[in-house]
């Protein structure tokens, strides 16, 4: 009996220590320092009028937008799950509408945190609401995020592999939509790009978005569908993105309690690594 008691007590102490060790403090993330990568991003967008039941809701007609960005991207922390936190700083930003520079664009100097897995897959875009909405417009130009972090699969030359390009658009007050491109990737082989040996990978697939907000005042649903295709170059040695040409298009439909508005948006753009 006493032996039995001692054994049970021994196991208890052992489990107690296991429990205690598992409670040891482990930070959720670790700060890191890495070189800053600089990119230029050019996006040409053809934006349709705001339509409701086939009729224009406002005086806004079809318009052409040119968004020019200089981005500084730096890994700043690593999370416990192995994902990276990258600070994306908008060092320069300009938007032209029908050839005219728009006044009051509030992107320059702003920053977000792009949390990605090591292959570039986007898990979260921290502070995205600070670069969205009027005079910021990155909710319209969100294609920039997968454009700088496209997350290709491992694919042999002349082969094709399916891999989704996904990202969530989530604000801290409960608005969320999820975007996904069911991309088929193919490896076009290695070539010189910006004096670096690079893999040239192409992709193509349908693009779908769904999400919404269920607030205390009204429900809004965000829906979009379209297609995406592009070619991206990745450094053969490091896997870093060197360049990306893309052509993505979608029809956006926003459904509210009182009405529905849709808009056609076509984006054609380039990402170039500078240094």
């Amino acid at each position, binding site marked *: 009996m006493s032996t039995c008691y001692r054994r049970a007590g021994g196991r208890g102490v052992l*489990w*107690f220590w*296991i*429990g205690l060790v*598992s*409670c040891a403090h482990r930070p*959720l*993330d670790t700060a890191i320092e890495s070189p800053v990568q600089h990119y230029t991003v050019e996006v040409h*967008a053809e*934006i349709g009028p705001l339509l*409701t039941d086939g009729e224009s*809701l*406002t005086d*806004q007609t079809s*318009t052409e*937008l040119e968004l020019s960005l200089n981005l500084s991207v730096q890994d*700043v*922390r690593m999370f416990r799950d192995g994902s990276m*936190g990258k*600070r994306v700083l908008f060092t320069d930003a300009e938007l032209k*509408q029908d050839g005219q520079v728009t006044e009051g664009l*509030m992107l320059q*100097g*702003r*920053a*977000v*945190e792009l949390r990605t897995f090591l292959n570039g897959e986007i898990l979260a875009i*921290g*502070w995205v*609401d*600070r670069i*969205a*909405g*009027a*005079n*910021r417009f990155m*909710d*319209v130009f969100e294609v920039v995020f997968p454009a700088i972090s496209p997350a290709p699969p491992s694919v042999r030359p002349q082969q094709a592999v399916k891999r989704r390009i996904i990202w969530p*658009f989530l*604000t801290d*007050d409960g*608005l969320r939509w999820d975007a996904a491109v069911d991309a088929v990737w193919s490896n076009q082989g290695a070539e010189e790009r910006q004096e670096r040996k690079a893999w040239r990978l192409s992709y193509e697939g349908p693009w779908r*978005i769904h999400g919404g*907000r269920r*607030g205390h*005042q*009204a429900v*809004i649903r*965000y829906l*979009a569908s379209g297609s995406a295709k592009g070619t991206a170059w990745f450094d053969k040695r490091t896997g870093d993105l060197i360049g990306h040409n893309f052509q993505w298009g979608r029809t*956006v439909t*926003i459904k*509210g*309690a*009182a*009405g*529905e*508005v849709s*808009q056609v*948006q076509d984006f054609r753009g380039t990402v170039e690594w500078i240094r």
Partner: protein
Amino acid sequence: MIWTLLLGAVPLDRVGAPLKLYLTHEDVVEHFRSVEPKLAECDLHADQTLPFKAGMFPDGKVEVTWVGVEPAPFMECARRVMESIKSPVHHGTTVHVSTTLYVRNGETFVSPSLSIDTRYLGPLMLFVSGDRTEREGVMKYLTGTPDPER
């Protein structure tokens, strides 16, 4: 008990705190909490209730303006002290704060229920040319209310 201990080891916040890129309400409150002890160098003999507005610039500069009160030596001292302490550097536009400084029994404190002027024109996914008016028109059409995203 073992399961309780193991559950205790699971982090409550699996996402991690956001990077300090912008000032939140908590950041602003914390800044003024750190300012309060420094105000001891001013003359705190008389009880006072002093509403003020503060601008917290991206580079950390702070500007203080008293609201609806007659100038007094204490206010000049308090303004100088509050403007001498840099707020956290951030990536947003200047944050405009409205609050009140209290002096009671030789102690100072800034009201914790401060308000921050917000200009919320949140995500819509649609490109709406123009500024607030055009955008609010679309939101009103969608929801029947001016701006439910506020």
